[in-house]
């Protein structure tokens, strides 16, 4: 079974640790997205898996065999580069057949595999072109076909969609996912785009400062972030800092500077310690009347309105806090203007408290 296991992988560059004691497992046929801000170590991790960067410590196994020290060309891992890295002096067909040529496969077999790969990425008939005669989206497909033609045990993609325009990017998300499912190939995609990760992955691994923050299904990453970093990084979030007043299994209370108290939920909190509450913007309600059912509700004044098309963001000032609420642009939802008075509220379940 092609299962990739990283155990305690560490990579230091002069001065800083790019990857810090990273352990994770990618299951057979699974599509994993490595997500994180730039400099979080996700690309270094990908390059360690590909063999272009060595690990200072830790072990890497694929299929149960140790590949920690195997050179890239012996790993049978397909790689799609951010810049595509197509060979400009070779035709599309030569690019796609290159890996098999390196493996000294018979010419007829290579030709057949190239045709198959071209069909897979829907570029039939373009084998004779040179890369520079193709559009960005087509080059992307060639890069994918080239990586897949060697029947890799694992497919790695480094920000493959970042050079495409918005519409094409959405299209390629679906396309890459379709191909991955069709072949049942194990795949890892590195991205800094959270919607890309949430939309494509079976599981998302969020990285920060070289460490794995959380690895879970997209919904779990979004709904139940494991760390303050994940909670703050994914989605549009209000962050409030204060002191834990009360902590327990049934819930926690955070006291903000100025005396405002928030009811929320969190683990590993102890009374008296500093903590941070994260509330997703779209989980806030904004209404003219007091929302009686919500434990956290404050009278407020709307100070700013940002029209976003599908939704509208309202900046609201309450007694001691300032919050942003994201409301759907829908007739069922009340409209507010700057200067309007109202009530802002959210449930305890939507108020995640993390120690800091």
């Amino acid at each position, binding site marked *: 079974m092609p299962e990739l296991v990283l155990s305690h992988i560490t990579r230091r560059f002069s001065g800083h640790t790019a990857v810090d004691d990273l352990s994770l497992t990618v299951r057979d046929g699974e599509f994993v997205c490595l997500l994180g801000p730039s400099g979080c170590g996700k690309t270094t991790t990908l390059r360690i898996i590909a063999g272009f960067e060595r690990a200072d410590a830790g072990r890497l196994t694929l299929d149960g065999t140790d590949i920690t020290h195997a050179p890239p060309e012996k*790993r049978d891992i*397909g790689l799609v*580069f951010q810049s595509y890295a197509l060979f400009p002096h070779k035709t599309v067909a030569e690019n796609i057949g290159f*890996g098999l040529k390196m493996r000294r496969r018979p010419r007829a077999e290579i030709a057949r595999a190239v045709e198959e790969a071209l069909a897979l990425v829907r570029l039939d008939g373009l084998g004779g072109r040179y890369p520079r005669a193709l559009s960005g989206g087509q080059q992307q497909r060639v890069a994918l076909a080239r990586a897949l033609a060697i029947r890799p045990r694992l497919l790695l993609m480094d920000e493959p969609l970042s050079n495409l325009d918005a519409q094409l990017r959405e299209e390629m998300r679906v396309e890459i996912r379709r191909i991955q499912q069709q072949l049942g190939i194990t795949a890892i995609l590195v991205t800094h785009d959270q919607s890309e990760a949430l939309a494509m992955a079976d599981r998302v691994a969020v990285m920060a400062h070289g460490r794995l923050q959380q690895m879970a299904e997209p919904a779990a990453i979004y709904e139940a972030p494991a760390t303050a970093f994940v909670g703050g990084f994914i989605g549009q979030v209000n962050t409030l800092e204060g002191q834990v007043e009360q902590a327990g299994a049934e819930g926690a209370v955070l006291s903000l500077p100025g005396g405002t108290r928030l009811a929320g939920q969190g683990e590993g909190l102890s009374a008296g310690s500093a903590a941070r509450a994260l509330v997703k913007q779209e989980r806030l309600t904004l209404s003219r009347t007091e929302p009686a059912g919500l434990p956290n509700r404050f009278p407020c004044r709307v100070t700013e309105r940002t029209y976003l098309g599908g939704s509208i963001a309202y900046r609201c000032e309450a007694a001691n806090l300032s919050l942003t609420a994201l409301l759907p642009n829908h007739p069922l939802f009340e409209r507010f203007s700057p200067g309007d008075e109202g009530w802002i509220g959210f449930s305890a379940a939507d108020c995640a408290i993390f120690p800091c």
Partner: protein
Amino acid sequence: MKQLCKAAGGLYLALLYLFVAGPLLFVIATSFNPATSFPAPFEGLTLSWYTAILARPEFLSGAGVSALVAALASALAVMVAFLAAYALSRPGGAGGRGAMATLLASPLLVPQVVLSLAMLQLASAWGVGTGFWGLVAAHAVYVMPFALRLVLTGLARFDFAVEEACRSLGGGWWATWREVTLPLLRPSLVAGFTFCFILSFVNLPLSLFLTSPSTATLPIVMFAYIESRIDPMIAAVASVIVLVAGLATILLDRYLHVRLVD
């Protein structure tokens, strides 16, 4: 006003180019002049000075020596410069690239006459003659920085990710060089070789103290000839060199899309 500025600019450039290329054009014109003194008023057109070259075997053998020296020196320089430029351009390589590039360009700061003298004195310190290989050595050191510069320019436009792509597809380092790196850098390598070849071929001072009658390069033969007399035949020899240099310039630009500047 704007038009006037433009015209003034054009005139300035025209005068500057005339100044820079004028002497060459005049040499070429003189080579067709039948007058036997140099310089002399124009008396007509003749190719006799070109046929006169053929009667002097030392010019032909000089050209042969020059071509051989230039080819060997340029080949050595381009090979060495390619390896160095590759090392200096690779991403994530050693620090101190700037200092290394400056060090490797240091032959440019050594006057060619001095290099020639130094080579002569090293040979005499070792008690050997300078000979053919001394010539090749001096020329190779001198042209190496030019090759380095051209290959570095080519490598600056080279996407090293294609090498990684090749390796991820199963190519070892030799396959990577053979299939990807060298083919993509070929224009720079050919340009570097051509440029170095011409620079070496036309160079006089490097060879000044290093030649014997059997290893006299073409510029040395011309140098010796001019010492005794100066006539339009030497202009004809120069014109042939100019022609070769001109063809090389066009070749470099037209077919290889590589220039000294970018």
